[in-house]
Structures are given as C-alpha cells and as structure tokens.
C-alpha cells in the first residue's frame, strides 16, 4: 500500500513535518518494500491559499491511500476524503518510525479536520 508522510527533509529518517498543506516535503512510501518517492511541496509552501487542497490532489495523483501527518485543515480534509485518502493526524517522530507504527496497525483514522481553516 502507498502511504504519504509529511516530512521536513528528503529521506526516511527525516522528522515528520506536522503541517500537511505547507509541509516542506511529502514522502510517498510503499509500506511493504519501504521504497519511497519524495514530493517537493515548495509550490504549496509558498501558496497564498489552498495549500492543503493542492497537496491533497498531488498525493491522490500518486495513488496514495493513507496520509500520516500532524495537522489537517478542513479544506485539505475535504479534498482527501473526496480522493478516498484516509488521514491519521498527530504523527511525530521520523518518517520511518511513522511507517513502522502504521504497519503495526494500531493507528486510528481521523473523522474530521483537527485544525481550523485559515482566513
């Protein structure tokens, strides 16, 4: 299964970036092989608005089924839901640790956004 983890740098030992839409990088990881692809999120980091929406569309295009991140706002959550991507919030530690915990199966999926939208 392909999952996406928000990351501050470009490898599996990077710290998870708690932000979703404006994460520095988003790493798409194959949960079985740990093969990964790094998505540069610079364009969304600098976006005036709608960073979460575009980040969600971007990972949907990569065939991601689950997103592991820190916080997720309402527009991002709505887009992720439309793209049938499940969300796990409040993730910390490294990307590798996050994937390992996910593989253990004891994570619960968010039912709504866990932060307010930006104005």
């Amino acid at each position: 299964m392909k999952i996406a983890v928000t990351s501050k740098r470009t490898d599996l030992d990077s710290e998870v970036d708690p932000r979703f839409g404006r994460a520095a990088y988003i790493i798409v990881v194959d949960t079985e092989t740990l093969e990964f692809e790094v998505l540069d999120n610079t364009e969304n980091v600098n976006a005036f608005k709608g960073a979460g929406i575009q980040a969600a569309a971007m990972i949907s295009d990569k065939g991601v089924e689950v997103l592991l991140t820190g916080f997720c706002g309402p527009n991002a959550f709505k887009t992720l839901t439309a793209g049938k991507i499940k969300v796990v919030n409040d993730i910390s530690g490294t990307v590798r640790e996050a994937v390992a915990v996910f593989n253990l199966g004891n994570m619960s999926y968010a039912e709504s956004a866990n932060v307010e939208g930006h104005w």
Partner: protein
Amino acid sequence: MIISVASGKGGTGKTTVATNLAYTLGTGVQVLDCDVEEPNAHLFLKPNIEQNESVYTIVPEIHKYRCSFCRKCAEICRFRAIAVMNEVILTFPELCHSCGGCFAVCPENAVAEKGRELGMIEKGRAGDLDFVHGRLRVGEAMSPPLIKRVRSYTREELITIIDAPPGTSCPVIAAMKGADYVLMVTEPTPFGLNDLKLAVEAVKLLNIPCGLVINRSDMGDRRVTDYAEQENIAVLMEIPFERRIAEAYSKGRLIVEVLPGWKEKFLELYRCIEKQINSGNLR
C-alpha cells in the same frame, strides 16, 4: 469630481471628514461609503434608505456529467479553488476570486456560473445628498467587488465623496483608484504617522494627488507635520482635540451641525482640494 477620503490607520476621522465635507457642500454631492466591512457614514448622515440590492460574485459550479477531468480549470486557478483528482472534481467557492479563468478554459462547457453573495448595497438620500453604501456579508473575505459595485453608482455630474476603508491593500485601492483626489486623514501620533506613510506609498502608486487633514491636531507630536513638509503634501485642515467636537461625535452628530462655524472651514477645505486638482499638482 471624485474625492476619496483615506487614512491608513483606522479611527483617524475619515468618516468625520467625509460626512462633514459632504454635508457642508450640501447639494450636488453624493457620498459613497466604501468602508463596506464597517460602514458608518450613515450614522452621521442618517439617510433615508430607498433601495437595496444583494450583490453576488460569480463562482464556478461544475456539471460533472460534462466534465472530462482534464484539469485545465484547476491549473488556471491561482487561488486553488478547484481540485481535480482522477474522476473527482471539487470546488471551493470561498477561495474563488471570480477571475472567470475556469469558465474560459473548460473545453467541455462543464463550468457553470453560480453566485456567492458578497453583501448588500443600500441607496438613499440624506437631505440633499445622494447616499450609497455597501455592507459586506459577515464572513465574506472579498470586499473589492462590492466596493466597485458601490462605486458604479458614481454620478459624474456630482461631487463624489468616498469614505474609504483603512489599510493599504486591495479594499482601499478599490476605494481610491480613479479618484481625482485622495484626502488623507491622520492623527499626529507615531501610530498615525506610521500608517500614513504606508497609505501615502499606496497613493503614489496610483499617481493621484493627495492632501492631508490632521485630526486631534493639538495632541501628539510634530512628526506628521514634518513628514508632510518633507513629502510636499499640503496640510489642508487641522481639527483640534476639542470637547465639543468629541461630544458631537459621541452623539452621532456632525461637527458642522453642532458648531456651524466649521462650515466655512470645510468649504475652505473643498476649495483647497479643487485648487490642487485644477493646478494638476501631483501630491
């Protein structure tokens, strides 16, 4: 002739100056309150509202049965108001700035026009004055289209006095652009000076002649006056921090109603503005 009353800083007396100037001139004048987030000129002019209308902006609505998910609409949208994923398309009308790009680029004719309410316009008369103001819907982020709609009621044969919103960004630009003159209202405090400088920069960009009214002029320090001198901006009027003026304001009354002697001062203010416009003197 269009005179836009602006300030940078809020609470300096834009509405006080705009309403007293309009009332003093009396006939042949219209007031457009373009501070649509917090319109309050009506509190002083007490117009009889005769007409109102809701104002909408156009946002996209996707006919999904026509959509081929080509993404052209999402790609052209600078404000990320459309997202396309596989065979899913989402719109975020609250992010839309109504540029019309998505309507233009859709090859399938799948983007329909839908309205989002921006607010209301109310029109009426206050004595001999023509009065128009906008009221932005609470929660709406985009005021410039509503401000432009208020300004669409400009009647060229009249003297148009615009009460502009504070600040230096899109709303105040929408309230100043195309004006013949910008009358800045400030107070002689560090706060007033700081925001005045920012507002003057905005007026320079628009290349509109401007002059200054210093409100509560007998308090604070001299730095606003020094700045005006240095920038060659004429100080056209000073309103002292006077108890009777503050009392009139606190009761929603005009200075010129309570202190008729001020009429001559506001007339003189108008004559100065007229002279500056006619001399073609930029700033």
